[in-house]
């Protein structure tokens, strides 16, 4: 299925395909081990601690040793677990994490043992969508882990992760649209090449910011780590997992971090292309050098992840969902609208930049006046509501309004009767405004 532009993809000899796959696998495992150590060291620095420094130079082998320890731990299978699904959930999670990396370009075409080949496992016309598709399969791992554990906290964690990943995947997908419009392609290698003069992080800054936000939500990392919020859900979806199965979830989380960072690099930071001062050096974008630039950019994103985790407190779940649906998605849609219109005018209609700017100013003016009129109307409505509330405060509450027992409306005053007083024969009533805040001052002793 290689089209003309994918001439070099799909033509590798078998040993090179296997070699590339093993290299990607090895790179991901190594990056995971490194990232765990790096995260612990950086978070420690930010908290005035030292962090792991015993095993190996600078404690570099700490995560390897932790991995061994984890693998040899006792495995506990909960009695109420649904065995088959319980087994397959971590496998789905880890597999999806590895497989998504197949379309990430590390570098341009190089020569390996005399064979000209791009430094990328494979590529095809919709490879960015492929990453999205694999990510949505990866969620199954979390959801099924939550369900199959047969326990309450994991189930809640699994449900949260579904809601979270589906919501943030929309914002993420919308942030890609700008890149697709500008690159004219959905293939990762072509998007990188299309950023040769200027990165999309610069010209598509809103898309970039939306992607960076949603990638943190997508990977369930702090401050969006609600599916495994320790304070609320013990460990979330992996509460009931131990030993190697837990290790697989752990691995998947860190690989996902690397994958979304690599995707951000590919789509917005020019992939393996050398950054500005370096790009003046002619051979910066040839041979194996680009792999280094790529790695540095990915590490920058991973540092951002760690920095966020060390700095920000976890968001509240409802605010987090509101943020995704009511802020990120509408902003993305408006932004796509703007760039689509701008590109349409620039490409097919002959308009000068001045005309485009004047047109934009008129649109903005209309929007501003419209929102001002809308606000006027809303204020009028609020005033009317306030008036109605005052009216209600003035009249007595009818507990049988319309022939049915009804609760008091906000502002209406309701008279309670003390049962104790009724029993004692001295009926006393207390008037309480239902909507008013409770007075909580200490009162005089009863006795």
């Amino acid at each position, binding site marked *: 299925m290689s089209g003309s532009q994918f001439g070099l993809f799909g033509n590798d000899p078998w040993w090179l395909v296997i070699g590339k796959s093993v290299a990607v696998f090895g790179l991901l495992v190594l990056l995971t081990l490194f990232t765990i150590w790096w995260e612990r060291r950086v978070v420690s620095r930010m908290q005035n601690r030292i962090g792991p420094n015993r095993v190996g130079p600078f404690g570099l082998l700490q995560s390897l040793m932790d991995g061994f320890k984890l693998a040899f731990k006792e495995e506990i299978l909960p009695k109420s677990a649904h065995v088959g699904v319980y087994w397959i959930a971590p496998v789905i999670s880890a597999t999806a994490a590895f497989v998504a990396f197949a379309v990430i370009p590390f570098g341009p075409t190089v020569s390996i043992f005399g064979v000209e080949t791009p430094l990328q496992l494979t590529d095809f016309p*919709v490879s960015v969508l492929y990453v*999205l598709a694999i*990510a949505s399969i990866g969620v199954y791992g979390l959801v099924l882990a939550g369900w199959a554990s047969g326990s309450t906290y994991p189930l809640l964690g699994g449900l949260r992760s579904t809601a979270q990943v589906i919501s943030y995947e929309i914002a993420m997908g919308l942030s890609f649209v700008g890149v697709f419009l500008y690159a004219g392609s959905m293939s990762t290698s072509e998007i990188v090449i299309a950023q040769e003069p200027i990165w999309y992080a610069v010209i598509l800054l809103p898309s970039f910011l939306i992607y960076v936000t949603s990638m943190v939500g997508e990977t369930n990392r702090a401050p969006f780590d609600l599916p495994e919020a320790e304070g609320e859900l013990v460990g979330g979806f992996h509460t009931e997992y131990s030993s190697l199965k837990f290790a697989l979830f752990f691995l998947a989380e860190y690989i996902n971090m690397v994958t979304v960072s690599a995707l951000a690099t590919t789509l917005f930071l020019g992939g393996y292309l050398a950054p500005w001062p370096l790009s003046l050096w002619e051979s910066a974008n040839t041979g194996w050098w680009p792999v280094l630039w790529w790695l540095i950019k990915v590490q920058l994103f991973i540092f951002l992840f760690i920095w966020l985790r060390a700095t920000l407190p976890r968001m509240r779940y409802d605010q987090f969902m509101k943020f995704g649906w009511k802020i990120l998605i509408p902003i993305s849609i408006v932004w796509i609208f703007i760039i689509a219109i701008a590109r349409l005018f620039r490409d097919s209609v002959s308009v000068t930049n001045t005309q485009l700017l004047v047109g934009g100013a008129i649109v903005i003016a209309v929007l501003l006046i419209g929102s001002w009129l809308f606000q006027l109307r809303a204020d009028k409505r609020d005033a009317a509501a306030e008036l109605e509330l005052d009216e209600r405060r003035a009249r007595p509450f009818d507990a049988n309004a319309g022939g049915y027992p009804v609760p008091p409306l*906000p502002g209406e005053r309701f008279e*309670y009767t*003390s049962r104790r007083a009724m029993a004692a024969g001295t009926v006393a009533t207390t008037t*309480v405004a239902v909507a008013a805040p409770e*007075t909580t001052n*200490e009162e005089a002793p*009863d006795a």
Partner: protein
Amino acid sequence: MNEVIEPNLGETLVFWICGGLAVVGALGMVISRKAVHSALWIALTMINLAILYVANSAPFLGMVQVVVYTGAVMMLFLFVLMVVGVDSSDSLIETIKGQRVAALLLGVGLTIMLVAGLGAGLSGAGTIGLDAANAADGGNVQGLARLMFSDYIIAFQATGALLITAAVGAMVLTHREYWQPRKSQRELSQDRFTDGGHPGNKPSPGVYARHNAVDTPALLPDGSTSAISIPAPLRARDDARAIDVNDITNVRRLTEGESE
């Protein structure tokens, strides 16, 4: 008649593996007793169909199949199944008489119709592949986009309108009207800290040897009762239990170290 392209070995292998798995998934979906298992089997079928689409030069359709159906639609199904907790205790008794026989007949009929119809329609057609169609617009995605936004624009827009109507309908059905604006976090915290507010946890009701009901107020160190320790409705109705003065003085005497 167009030139016929024979499938190569790889294509044949992909077809038999993915096709077989898709059928296994479909059967598993029908046979499974647990609703969640059924959902998983159908996800397997969907993923295999997506691979077949990709193998048949329709990569965009394949990816959209996974993102939309496996990733979103099936996931929402799972979500509902988990929340509602449909489990193996589902009754397998027929509620409509003759349901199984009717379903079987209709199923067999549909199979015969599909096989016969598709067989008759495609027997002489041969395969031409998508390569020519994909190349016409410079790629699979571009070709799809051109068709969707030119020839099929009405169908596309109508489908979009239908979906939006459904989404808005769902929101209207679940809409809840607030009587007054909800307090923001800022207002809530101001209420908590300004006059009459209580910033911390309220004290729990008193538990004594005689009473452990919630209408028993907690005792403060000076022996007085804490009004905020009992629930607001009880307080509003003036229904707090009275504490015997003698009890309080006894306790005070004990804590002050007077031996009896």
